[in-house]
């Protein structure tokens, strides 16, 4: 039985029916990581000892007849910007190498309570700043479908791990598309919940008003199950929303008859890859055949969102990353004469080029004399973008568009051109500014055998409609299955 090829819900059913044990499952994934991760580098750290011990404990509980949690025995890969108590949590940054948080993130507490087993920490763009996982301080992750291509980012390690069967499900974080875009590039289901539904406590902040933890899985149902475990109010996160936003599994069976699907055709002109355009056509057709009412919606030009995003996100990041000063934890420069020397040394050595660039940008847009022209204006633009989405969602229940304009690009293709890299997020960033929810659903392969992803977007707390539409798309387009086992390059 190929356990690593199964979805998490199939594994859960198998463990509950005692067809195999939680330990069997965890060992299968650990073996597969040992065999294959060297080539894709999805993991920064694998927690084998703890994972096996936890699986055994769960098996004993199940043997004693106690009710297994909704994720009992399900291994999960966790992006390295989510705190796991006592284990390395570095955000793939040298400045946090060796740092082990003294607490579990709220989502980790919830996963443990549900019986999930943390397999290890996955690679990412340093502090989630990037769209290709090339900005990791510990080496890039490769796309399991083609080792010369990027897996997307910043949750590239999590997406690659799920695509290659190194973990059935994973956690990522989405600030401007960092869950959905690698989901598209690696061919897995990947969801960004409504801002506030999942606690950010223990998610190491990049841009606080945009960050949201989201699930990645091999199918929509796994994303839904994980979402239901993760969501809910957290009194320790002041931005967390009141509860009641779980989506019953039955929603997946409701179909899309009468659901209004809007496609923002204005966005989809130049620069759209022909294979992506064809996949969009197939998706529209699939939804239509299932009874959805597909029409056009107009939305503000997404280049405004990109501009506003790179001001707001960098401004917040410039403050969020100020704490890495070498005084209390993490890397610390040696031989500094005074505090200023300690800061400059620690931060110049510890942060990579993209992180430094964004800190400088964020510092600049908040500076006296520039604040009004940049930060304040970007906040006004954000309000307009929010209103624009509200208006669009008055006419459509969900929006449909490609997750990225192209399939995965080549490693090194965009590293010399930050602007081109930023524009690879053009279809995902607007949703974060609006704070709604979205999901990537695999939509076949390109002529070059690279996954293509379609994105569904829904209003704030519109997860039920989102999952319904996603399930419909998935059942009509089919999942991609595991990426072919990578050959040596």
């Amino acid at each position, binding site marked *: 039985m190929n356990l690593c090829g199964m979805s998490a819900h199939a594994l859960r059913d198998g463990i509950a029916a005692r067809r195999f044990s939680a330990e069997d499952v965890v060992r299968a994934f650990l073996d597969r990581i040992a065999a294959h991760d060297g080539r894709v580098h999805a993991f920064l750290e694998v927690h084998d000892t703890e994972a096996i011990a936890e699986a055994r404990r769960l098996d004993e509980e199940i043997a004693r007849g106690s009710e297994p949690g909704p994720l009992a025995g399900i291994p999960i890969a966790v992006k390295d*910007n989510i705190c796991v108590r006592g284990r390395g949590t570095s955000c793939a940054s040298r400045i946090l190498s060796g740092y082990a*948080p003294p*607490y579990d993130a709220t989502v980790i507490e919830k996963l443990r309570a549900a019986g999930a087993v943390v397999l290890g920490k996955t690679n990412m763009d340093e502090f989630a700043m990037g769209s290709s996982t090339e900005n990791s301080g510990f080496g890039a992750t490769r796309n399991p479908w083609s080792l010369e291509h990027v897996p997307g980012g910043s949750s590239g390690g999590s997406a690659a791990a799920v695509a290659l069967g190194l973990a059935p499900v994973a956690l990522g974080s989405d600030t401007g598309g960092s869950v959905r875009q690698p989901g598209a590039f690696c061919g897995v289901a990947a969801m960004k919940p409504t801002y506030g539904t999942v606690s950010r406590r223990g998610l190491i*902040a990049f841009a*606080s008003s945009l960050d949201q933890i989201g699930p990645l899985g091999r199918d929509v149902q796994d994303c839904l199950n994980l979402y239901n475990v993760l969501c809910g109010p957290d009194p320790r996160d002041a931005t967390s929303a009141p509860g009641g936003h779980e989506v019953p599994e039955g929603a997946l069976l409701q179909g899309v008859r009468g659901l209004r699907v809007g496609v923002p055709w204005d966005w989809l002109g130049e620069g759209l890859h022909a294979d992506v355009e064809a996949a969009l056509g197939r998706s529209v057709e699939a939804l239509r055949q299932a009874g959805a009412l597909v029409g056009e919606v107009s939305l503000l030009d997404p280049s405004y969102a990109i501009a506003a995003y790179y001001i707001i996100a960098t401004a917040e990041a410039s*403050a969020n990353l*100020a704490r890495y000063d070498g*005084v*209390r934890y993490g890397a610390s420069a040696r031989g500094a004469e005074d*505090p200023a020397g300690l800061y400059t040394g620690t931060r110049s050595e510890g942060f990579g080029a993209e992180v430094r660039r964004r800190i400088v940008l964020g510092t600049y847009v908040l500076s006296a004399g520039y604040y009004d022209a940049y930060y304040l204006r970007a906040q006004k633009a954000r309000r307009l973008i929010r209103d624009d989405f509200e208006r669009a969602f008055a006419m459509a229940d969900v929006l449909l568009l490609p997750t990225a304009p192209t399939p995965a690009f080549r490693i090194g293709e965009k590293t010399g051109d930050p602007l081109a890299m930023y524009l690879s997020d053009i279809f995902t960033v607007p949703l974060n500014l609006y704070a709604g929810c979205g999901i990537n659903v695999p939509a076949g392969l390109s002529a070059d055998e690279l996954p293509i992803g379609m994105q569904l977007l829904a209003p704030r707390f519109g997860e039920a409609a989102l999952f319904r539409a996603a399930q419909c798309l998935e059942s009509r387009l089919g999942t991609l299955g595991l990426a072919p086992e990578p050959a040596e390059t």
Partner: protein
Amino acid sequence: MGAPHESAARGYEPVIGLEVHCQLLTRSKIFCSCSTAFGAPPNSQVCPVCLGHPGVLPVLNRRAVELAVVLGLALGSKIREVSVFARKNYFYPDLPKGYQISQYDLPLCDGGSLQIGTGDARRTIGITRLHLEEDAGKMKHAEDGSGRSLVDLNRCGVPLIEIVTEPDLRTPEEAHDFLERLKQLVQYIGVCDGNMEGGSLRCDANVSVRPRGSEALGTKTEIKNLNSFRNVQRALEHEIRRQIAVLESAGRVEGATLLWDATRDRLQVMRTKEEAHDYRYFPEPDLLPLVLAEEWIAAIRGMVPELPEARRARFVREYALPEYDAGVLTATRELAGFYEAAARRSGDAKLASNWVMTELLGAVKGDTERLRNLPLTPERLGDLLALITSGAISGKIAKAVFEEMAVSGGEPGAIIEACGLSQIVDPDAIRALIAEVLAANAPQVVDYLAGHERVLPHFIGQVMKASRGRANPELTNRLLREALEARRE
């Protein structure tokens, strides 16, 4: 003495504004549940939140908001229904996050005022704003000669309210008076312990000078590190003298931040205007805007006790006390409360005032804080005073009973009984004492019978002495006259 009179003579007028930080009397910190107790071992009252660990989030302490609103209401400020927290960005080893959570353009309270001076010299000093913020830690230079600096983060996250005055103060004495009044107020309403040495009340001063009669403001300097009211006054005197000297020599005052060196009695430049920080304030994305419902403000209004000014006026009106008495009695909330309870019980407000001002304040050596630990309750003091008014004991006996009550807290009747201090009202007993006294003072009896009535008090004194103060004075007086007149026959 110093500057103000000289400046007046030279035709210059100082303009002073203060920024006062008050530590709010909460049990836990403003954004986490760590204790705020003063004097704990360094770095023993810290957690991941106040240490600025990666991934932590602030959660606002509701009690801190309540206390701040109580102060705002007491100062007659307008309480904002929506106020916003902001990040104030700067690097310093005592600031773990690299930013301080404060309030900027939308503070908790706007406007308000505080009265200074007395009688005709009474003046109203405007308050610009009040805002909530978190304290930073404390740096200490190691005393082991290593040249190392140590940081204690216990104070990080302790809730502060910053009070900014209008530039309404005109002399260093007024600044001193303002601080005294503010201290009295914050202690009175229980929002701050007012302990300047412990750091729970801190002050920065802004000062400029201008030709008398001029409307335009001169260039101001800011003075920091003022750790006592006296230092505030001293530093202002120095700086006013210096600014006038600069202007007199046709120079220009340069904007700067100065540090007061109390041990050397002098000011030194900390930074010039060119070196001023750009704090890059922006709204704190981890906290939602603080919305105070009208009902909540109304509930807090109910928590504001009667303020010293109002209480003083009421004491004059209600108890017919002299202004002086009312002023002394309302100096602290403890004293005013004690007085009022004792006065009501005794039924003689003026008598109670005399006793509280002399005996009671004497017993606590003028420190009304000690009233809390005094065994004597105001009700028992009232009972004692009632015994005087009813003639049951003399004032002199009452003082002896009071001394015993101050130590044991006992009930006055029982003490009088136990110590045999009750008044002698038995005419026969007093007649016996009188007989003894007259027998022992034969020459004075002759004088009296010869018409020299002025010796009468001498006899009364002797009787009192013989009775150890217990003889009823009126009865003694009457019986003594009777006894003497009887000898005439």
